[in-house]
């Protein structure tokens, strides 16, 4: 059983509360997208689900077993892909089978033919079979990310986690990578949780959406409930905030009784008038 249960998850780093009492359940085979602005806790959530971080409070269960350390059946895809750039695509994919092989076998690439074929098949799935022997360093960002997906697939996971897998890619590659992720998850019946910060991509690929803001879950719902109101809730009204910030900050400057007051105040007067914050 590979359903995921997150129960009362809280994670603090010193003073910072990265996650604040987050709970949800993901049934087997669902494709979930986690949204939130930078610092909202997306990475922390995924790292907890993977056992890379230990929750301060609360619990995460896969089926019935709690997660407390990285496990082969949970595969993770990272924003910075984290593949070994010094190895070729095939060897990178093959590292997904490390947990099934002894140290010496993996050192000399004496894995079973089955494992090797599986690595190539995973590269095929992400459209990189022809580049299997190319050095990862010489690949484009999108290709590297796809190698990361291939490695995850070779792990034979039941759960696929991905932390902003397309954040550093251009739109074309982003769509391609998300497409591969969705195809792979669907073909293999994987439960997938993927964090994103592009709303348009999320809408295009997501099945279910979880919104985080300041570590709290502010939205949890399916396609039909995911509308502009939800986006405002997740992202706040960043437009105004972003565009008028310089003037806003000038407002809390020092006392207005300084020498060069006349010109400056007139200038500030104009901009203060322009916004009501």
């Amino acid at each position: 059983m590979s359903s995921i249960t997150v129960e009362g998850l809280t994670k603090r780093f010193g003073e910072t509360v990265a996650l604040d009492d987050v709970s949800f359940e993901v049934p087997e085979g669902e494709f979930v997208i986690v949204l939130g602005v930078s610092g909202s806790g997306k990475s922390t959530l995924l790292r907890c689900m993977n056992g890379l971080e230990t929750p301060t409070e609360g619990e995460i269960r896969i089926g019935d077993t709690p997660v407390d350390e990285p496990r082969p059946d949970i595969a993770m895809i990272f924003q910075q892909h984290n593949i070994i750039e010094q190895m070729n695509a095939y060897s990178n994919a093959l590292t997904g089978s490390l947990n099934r092989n002894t140290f010496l076998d993996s050192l000399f690439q004496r894995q079973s033919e089955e494992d090797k074929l599986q690595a190539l098949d995973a590269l095929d799935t992400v459209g990189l079979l022809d580049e299997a022997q190319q050095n990862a360093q010489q690949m484009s960002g999108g290709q590297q990310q796809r190698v990361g997906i291939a490695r995850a697939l070779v792990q034979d996971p039941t759960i696929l986690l991905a932390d902003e897998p397309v954040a550093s890619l251009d739109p074309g590659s982003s769509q391609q990578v998300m497409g591969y992720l969705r195809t792979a998850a669907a073909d293999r019946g994987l439960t997938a949780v993927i964090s994103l910060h592009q709303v348009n991509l999320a809408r295009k690929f997501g099945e279910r959406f979880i919104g985080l803001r300041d570590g709290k879950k502010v939205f949890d719902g399916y396609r039909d409930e995911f509308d502009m109101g939800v986006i405002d809730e997740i992202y706040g009204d960043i437009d105004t905030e972003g565009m008028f910030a310089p003037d806003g900050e000038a407002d809390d400057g020092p006392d207005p009784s300084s020498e060069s007051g006349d010109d400056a105040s007139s200038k500030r007067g104009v901009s203060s008038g322009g916004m009501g914050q």
Partner: protein
Amino acid sequence: MSYGDSVRDRYEEIVLARRVRALVFLAGFAALAGLFYYALISVGFFAANIPNYLPNFLNALRDFFPFFTPAFPFIEPAGFLDYWAFIDERNLIWGGFGGETPLFGEAGITLAMGFAGTVMGFPLALLFGVLGSGRVTPFPFNFIFRGLMSSIRAIPALVWGLIYIPLGGIGPVTATLAIATDTVGNLGRLFTDELEEIEDGPIEAMETTGANKPQLITFGMLSQVTTPFIAWTLYIFEINVRIAVSLGIIGGGGLGNVLSVQQGLFAFTNMMATILVILVLIISVEIVSQRIRSALREGDEAQGIVALLMGFPQRMAEAALK
């Protein structure tokens, strides 16, 4: 143009801060200068009265460079012939086939000392270097290995040479052992440093695949640093050839030995000839090593070389094995 109050205030603040900073820097600089002055006193620098002896020194330099003449055109080609005569007579560069010195003469012995020392020291350097990393050996224990490497480095190769006399006798063998020991300390430390700087990401990713500790170390860490490790080894090889010259001076054989004999004979021209050979040797080693290193750094080029090297046998083998 005029500016807002907050800008002016900030400006005043920066001016003040800069003034304070300048004071602090001045104080630091003065402290450094004071230390420098004290150090010069300690070594007796002012007592040595260097400006006085500069003409003497320049004069003495002429012993080394017989091809300089005081009059125009300042260079006498015959001086170079003196150099060459000595180099040729003493087999400095070319030992000939089947002779007693190796193919590359005395330079060959020096090179052999540096090379053999590097190869002999490499395995232990790798072991200690990896075990010295906090990522591999947990905190207090990795300092055992770091301390060991520090201790080895702290003892100059010259002293190691002395310590090894009962083992290797007098001559190049002992020097080679000393170089190998030095390599463990120097190369190992570079390895440790390099390991501290690798990215955490790929290691973490390896962890999530369920790899065990040796796999984590090999694939997550070492695979990231093979290129820099090779580069550092070549760098230490360069340094080891230089050390081989120094050890030769105190009895290790090779070019250093020749140098020290000629020094004893006050044969400055011959000494300079030897120095020239040392120069050629070391610069050659450096160029070769730097070529390899830059090829390694730019994967493309390496790819090019590897492709070139492998292209032919690959086609051959493919034909044969199919």
